């Protein structure tokens, strides 16, 4: 069996795992912030979305390279 399939699978799996942990921490803190100060919901939502974009970047880089490995481009 071609080992690149396993390599790509591992890269995508760990990317998803890391993104799950990161987003979990981010949004649990976001909900805590809303629970403490419900009137700050609007500003917190914008900040949370921007941080989501920053957090999501590193796992998605891993996933993109995983897809490249999976399809045998590199």
């Amino acid at each position, binding site marked *: 069996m071609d080992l690149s399939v396993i390599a790509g699978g591992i890269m995508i799996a760990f990317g998803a795992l890391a993104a799950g942990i990161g987003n979990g921490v981010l949004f649990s803190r976001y909900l805590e912030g809303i629970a403490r100060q419900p009137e700050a919901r609007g500003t917190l939502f914008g900040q949370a*979305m*921007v941080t*989501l*974009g920053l957090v*999501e970047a590193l796992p998605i880089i891993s996933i*993109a390279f995983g897809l490249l490995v999976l399809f045998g481009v590199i």
Partner: protein
Amino acid sequence: MEITPKIKFLGLTFDVTVMIGTLVTAILVLILVLAATRGRSMRPRGMQNVMEMVLEFIQGITQMMLPPKKAAKYLSFAVTVFLFVFIANELGVIVMVTSEVHKPIAWLGLTKQALESAKGEVSWFKSPTSDINVTVAMAFAIALYAHFAGLFKSPRRYFGHYFKPYALMFPLHIIDELAKPTTHAARLWANIFAGEVLILILRNGLPYLTGIPLMAWIGFSLFVGAIQAYIFTVLAMVYISQKIADEDH
């Protein structure tokens, strides 16, 4: 995966889809901005409203990131970057142009083997930001500009900052300066590339994948494209402001 036509010229390989994509995006941005600023009035209507909203949105970024005197100077640059990246991201999700090619076309790099492996399906349009060369070029151009802006502002401070707070930190500063444009480029490219590949997989996949999951993913891709355009602009402004900021800032 589909194959893309490529041109070999002077030993370099040019991807035709990326060139078409960049051209279409640039022309669309030009048309959009020209249409929005035709017949401006004090009471904005229609497109002018949208463009004013975008301008004020980007003005928020520049005023947040840059010293007040510099914010107005970099506004047009930030708006250009934002509009180009945003339109490019969204076009890649919405537009898709493929054709079936049966005869090999040598000068476009469509050989018989490549056509057979892709079942004759050739892609003619993709988001320029889903190609790593485009984003790397953009990110390194911004980084180069930031370095020169810092150098011309005050050479002594520019070189001094590499040895702060200790001279031993010099290697770390070099790694930092190289990592910034690399992650800046990879962040945008990876998001858009992974999104487009997943759309292709869902489209060509099993029948139960092409309905609701594809629609949900396209919706998420539109959202990610907007967020990444915003983050690309914010990071560009952050990297420039780090170099040109005053000492007391």
